[in-house]
């Protein structure tokens, strides 16, 4: 297993970033740094022959500076959002909440702002929430985050409009880390839209760690579309703990970056909790994607539905790894894990590992499926016979392949963006 040298992961960096914060912040950062140092690139021996670490320009970048203080709540940009936040190079650049949401009790804050103004809430949220400590890069984000946001949705508040988060990279040769903390109390519901973009084409590193708590009967729909520049190393970790009758829904799109290492882990803790996790990858040129989708069933009658689809062009590589664990306490689980890859060129490579670990026989369903395929030339022929040029036919087939994942994205704007990104891959 290849190691990954991360020269900016240093104690001084964590100390510098913790300056001015309560002492527990530095302790937590150093603990995370220690775990980063002691955790292998791939924590599961099941996958350690199938981890991609090359291609990320981590040795060419330095740790980003201490974030300047986040601004006060500003005016909401157009688009009909409940709340809006913008993170630029790891620092919170703007925050806004609609009047309706504010009246309903929605709290949106930067982490730096919460540490200064609501230290108790900040401590509670920053130290809890981690459902899976095993991911090395999650620890890196927890050690070296510059800032991040906290979204706290109180009990019973059902946000009518989505919450929008833009993560933007502008500074070259820097490593930026941000945390996103979302808490939905009992009966709350929210739709979260996260987008990634770079305005530069230079080596850089971006880490985002998202920790979500979905309370009893709460519902979180989290969509994220990543399109960082072609020289970016992207480290994503998303975790959700879902309580009784709660529902989490991930709609994730991975398009950009030189190397994207992503791990999403949902823990279904409560009885009758549910997760739907759909993920799409479209790689081209020499892009590399190392995508893990994990679900752990602990509550009774929990349901999981995980579907990952990867289309790979040119010399791109895609490893899609999945694991559904049904704990011995997780009686009557109903789970499905599907992983599919479409190889579009001779040089493209794919690894699919859909794993199951089942500790109880009281299972309603535990099923997985995987397939690696190429474009069916019969379909191309059929479309050609209907007057569609062959290249267009191939695009249509790829869109059709990815569509089951894309259609799960609730925002029309995001779906349009995904279609635009897919279109751009053919350029």
């Amino acid at each position, binding site marked *: 297993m290849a190691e990954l040298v991360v020269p900016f992961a240093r104690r001084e960096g964590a100390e510098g970033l913790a300056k001015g914060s309560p002492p527990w912040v530095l302790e937590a950062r150093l603990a995370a740094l220690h775990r980063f140092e002691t955790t292998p690139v791939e924590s599961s021996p099941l996958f350690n022959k199938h981890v991609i670490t090359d291609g990320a320009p981590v040795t060419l970048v330095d740790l980003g500076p201490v974030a300047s203080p986040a601004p006060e709540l500003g005016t909401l940009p157009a688009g009909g959002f409940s709340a809006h936040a913008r993170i630029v190079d790891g620092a919170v650049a703007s925050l806004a909440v609609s009047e309706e949401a504010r009246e309903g009790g929605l709290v949106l804050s930067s982490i730096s702002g919460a540490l200064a103004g609501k230290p108790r809430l900040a401590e509670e949220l920053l130290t809890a929430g981690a459902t899976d400590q095993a991911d090395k890069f999650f620890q890196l984000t927890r050690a070296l985050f510059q800032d991040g946001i906290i979204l706290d949705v109180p009990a019973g508040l059902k946000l009518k409009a989505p919450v929008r988060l833009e993560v933007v990279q502008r500074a070259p040769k820097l490593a930026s880390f941000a945390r996103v903390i979302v808490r939905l109390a009992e009966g709350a519901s929210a739709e979260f839209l996260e987008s990634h973009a770079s305005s530069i084409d230079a080596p850089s590193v971006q880490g985002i760690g998202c920790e979500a708590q979905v309370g009893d009967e709460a519902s979180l729909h989290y969509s994220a579309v990543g399109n960082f520049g072609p020289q970016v190393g992207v480290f994503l970790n998303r975790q959700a703990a879902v309580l009784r009758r709660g529902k989490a829904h991930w709609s994730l799109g991975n398009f950009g970056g030189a190397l994207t290492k992503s791990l999403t882990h949902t823990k279904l803790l409560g009885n009758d909790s549910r997760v739907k996790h759909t993920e799409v990858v479209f790689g081209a040129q020499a892009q590399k994607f190392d995508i893990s989708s994990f679900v752990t069933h602990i509550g009774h009658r929990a349901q999981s539905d995980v579907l990952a689809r990867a289309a790979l062009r040119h010399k791109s590589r895609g490893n899609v790894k999945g694991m559904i664990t049904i704990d011995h306490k997780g009686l009557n689980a109903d789970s499905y894990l599907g992983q599919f890859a479409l190889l579009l060129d001779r040089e493209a490579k794919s690894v699919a590992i859909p794993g*199951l670990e089942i500790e109880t026989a009281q299972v309603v369903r535990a099923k997985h*499926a995987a397939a690696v395929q190429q474009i069916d030339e019969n379909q191309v022929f059929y479309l050609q016979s209907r007057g569609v040029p062959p290249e267009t036919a191939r695009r249509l087939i790829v869109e059709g392949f990815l569509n089951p994942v894309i259609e799960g994205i609730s925002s029309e704007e995001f779906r349009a963006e995904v279609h635009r990104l897919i279109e751009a891959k053919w350029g």
Partner: protein
Amino acid sequence: MAAPTRDLPSEDYSRYAFKDDIVYATTIPKGLSEETVRSISAIKKEPEWMLNFRLRAYRHFVKRAMPNWGGVLSNIDFNQITYYMSASKKEGKTWDDVPDKVKQTFEKLGIPEAERKFLAGVGTQYDSEVVYHSVRKELTEKGVVFMGTDTALREYPELFKKYFGTVIPPEDNKFAALNSAVWSGGSFVYIPPGVVVDQPLQAYFRINAEQVGQFERTLIIAEEGSRVHYIEGCTAPVYATESLHSAVVEVIAKKGAQVRYTTLQNWSKDVYNLVTKRAHAHAGANVEWLDANTGSRLTMKYPSVYLLGEGAKAEIVSVAFAGNGQHQDAGAKAVHLAKNTTSHITSKSVSKDGGRTTYRGLLKVAKGATGVKSTVRCDALMIDDRSRSDTYPYIEIDEEDAAITHEATVGKISDEMLFYLQSRGLKENEAMNLIVLGFVEMFTKELPMEYALEFNRLIRLEMEGSVG
């Protein structure tokens, strides 16, 4: 009126659990060292190249780390194992030459009857050396060689040296290295070009002495256009402390050859069964592994086929049954290295009473291997809540032009099925037996009749006490 009940024939299972007091003719002290390896080679009066092969393997074994995946291997103490032991110094040419004690053991296992009925040859292994071996006359006339591996090294030195260790080099994994260093016994099969062996060749292996590791080495060479079916079955007496069985099986199927290798593994529940099995399938060849694991404490075994020539085919059927204290970490590997090759992998596993079954499979399509088709299907049945089932399929595709599908399901016996069968007059345990036997039937139906009967009996035995 009460529903009529039927009694399934009761079986006497005591024959699977016995131990004879044998006086071993040659035994070397417990423990593993370069000296052990040299002694084994010296006792066998082996040529120098084999000693060097063993030493190379031993040195790799010492260097190589224990696997950090699969089952719990930390209880194996390599220094508490006897690496060589033989009950008689010479292979029995006829049944009369076989020592009486050994004969009685095999009688309990039903081997002589099996031979009388329809089996082409018998190669039985008592501990570490083949003690009895016969090949029917007509096979000998066709040029078929079926003998103990040690004898083959003496009688066919050139053929042996050409193929031995070419499919599984000692450096392949830690346990292949161990076997290569201390191997003893096993079967050697050579089928000349175009020869079709209609009846299955059979070999029976047993571990008898407590803490005797058994490191047999089997090599099958099927020349162009030939056909053979080889069957091995294992039963072992029950002991309290660990035993280690670490075999290496190499199969070479030349152009257009057809090889089927059937294994019924029923080691006693204290045995570590860590086996490397691999076949090379050349152009147009067809290799089938039928592999059933019901015994042992821990089995780690992934029969594999390297599809080296265009149009080669692989079929792997793996059946595992894990009861209390057992972990069956089984699976299959198909490595596609040539064009238009196909593979089908089917895995069926049953776990109960806290047993654990794991399917671990690899499907690899190398660059340039276009037109590959492969399907993998794994089904796991869990009888109770204390059991565990894992599925780890690895699918590595380096070639665009491949069609690969994998499917798996894990489930329990449905109440509807049980209810239906009970409404037809079956008792609950009979109904469960029937469902489990049906679940693995696609394996059983491929077995010769005697094996199918024994396998069904074993499954029923394993299922005892599942209800209530």
